[in-house]
């Protein structure tokens, strides 16, 4: 099974959960790790609003995903896999996935994700399956060496497993999935080459708006705000693009939506994320732009939060404030 990992390495496939870790390298670490058992987990939590590629893949290519997990099971010599599904995906595609797994006689179990955005994070995911308190854990040790039940665990995104299956079949053409939504003509999931800029994606899919707009690139909550003249770059993280009308969008309603999402989705473990998020929500619902307080809150969220969720929360708010709201005030 050495060729499988070599093939993936050669393809240069990067993890599609947002962090972009090299998939081949990850598989090799899990393969070399020692443990009496190993686990493979397919992460289909997809909690980010405005990103719906995993649902698209599960709907149209469940065979490929299961095939990808099977390849992983053989490659890292594991005998148990989980598919960690969001509640509505579990309800919609659970039946179909179970049927495929039963037909192929694979050791794959389905697991329903508890509510909350943080539960899609890999260390929380592990604790959810273990049945423990849903809080993130300190990294290192990474799950590749100490994961589910303290054993080496391979966690990859649904899209990654889909592309692994494609690589082994020899059908991989360096593409990825983009979820386009917002004020556009054809909101949908598109499979396009990796190296396209955001402008090219919008133009190629016929979604370039004819009005002044700004976009949120990455995800519908943690993504960065980009103005029209900043679209000559590749998309980072998750392939979500949300287009907003520049004049018609209510910025505070938008930020309230994000704040409410984070306030309900975080785990309430550390002070900056628990208290800071509440304060941010409070300030935004009163439509205040108190620069000092906001600056302080963003500072502690960015620098002192426990997990990467807390560290990334401030990005959309900060970019929207700096690029649009403060500019308009002056």
């Amino acid at each position, binding site marked *: 099974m050495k060729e499988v990992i070599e093939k993936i390495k050669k393809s240069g496939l990067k993890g599609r959960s947002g962090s972009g870790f090299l998939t081949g390298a990850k598989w090799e670490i899990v393969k070399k790790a020692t443990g009496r058992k190993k686990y493979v987990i397919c992460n289909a939590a997809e909690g980010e609003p405005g990103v719906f590629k995993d649902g698209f893949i599960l709907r149209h290519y469940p065979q490929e995903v299961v095939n990808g997990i099977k390849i992983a099971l053989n490659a890292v010599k594991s005998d148990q896999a989980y598919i960690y599904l969001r509640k509505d995906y579990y309800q919609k595609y659970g039946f179909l996935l179970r049927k495929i797994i039963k037909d192929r006689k694979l050791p794959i179990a389905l697991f329903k994700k508890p509510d909350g955005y943080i539960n899609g994070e890999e260390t929380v995911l592990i604790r959810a399956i273990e049945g423990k308190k849903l809080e993130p854990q300190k990294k290192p040790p990474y799950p590749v060496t100490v994961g589910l039940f303290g054993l080496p665990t391979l966690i990859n995104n649904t899209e990654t497993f889909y592309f692994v299956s494609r690589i082994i079949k020899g059908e991989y053409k360096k593409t990825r999935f983009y979820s386009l939504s917002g004020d556009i003509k054809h909101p949908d999931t598109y499979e396009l080459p990796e190296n396209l800029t955001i402008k090219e994606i919008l133009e190629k899919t016929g979604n370039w708006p004819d009005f002044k707009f700004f976009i949120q690139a990455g995800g519908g909550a943690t993504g960065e705000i980009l103005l029209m003249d900043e679209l000559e770059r590749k998309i980072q993280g998750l392939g979500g693009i949300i287009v907003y009308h520049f004049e018609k969008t209510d910025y505070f309603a938008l930020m309230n939506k994000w704040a409410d999402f984070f306030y309900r989705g975080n785990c309430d*473990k*550390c*002070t*900056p994320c628990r208290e800071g998020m*509440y304060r941010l929500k409070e300030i935004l619902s009163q439509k205040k732009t108190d620069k000092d307080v906001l600056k302080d809150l963003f*500072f*502690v969220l960015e*620098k*002192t939060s*426990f997990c990467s969720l807390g560290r990334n929360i401030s990005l959309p708010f900060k970019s929207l404030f700096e690029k649009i709201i403060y500019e308009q005030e002056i």
Partner: protein
Amino acid sequence: MNKRFEITIDGKKYQAVSGQTVLEIARKNGIDIPSLCYHPDLEASESCRLCLVKNKDTSELLTACSLKVRPGMRIITDSPDIRRARRINLELLFAQHLEECNDCVWSYQCRLLELAKKYDVKINRFIDRKKIILFIKWARLLFLKAPSALIAAIAWKFAANKEWVFLS
């Protein structure tokens, strides 16, 4: 096998054994690092985010209670950045804890007030989160979400009127 080596805290060298945390060594040598959720007998929970220290090489803020020592480590325990982060986190914590000093058993001898004085914290910067009272009345049932002291008072009042009260 435990290895012995030296680490640098605020420019001074201290002996350390592998497996120890920065907070342990600092406390042992009389360097003050504030902390609230840390207890030596328990596993570090790292939730209060007050024991922040700075790694001089990477200049990122880390929690001393969970930071394991490595040979040649250079740590700063006090800088404007650190003080600012501690101050804001204290202010956020205080917002949950306001106006309870009068009937508190610690009678002003508490760690929070001590830290507030040291870090120049404006303790009423944010309004009390628990001040918000939520009433939902439906038929003869009353649901409410309020501070515990208030709940007791209201429950007494409604119990006198023989109405059902669900407390949360």
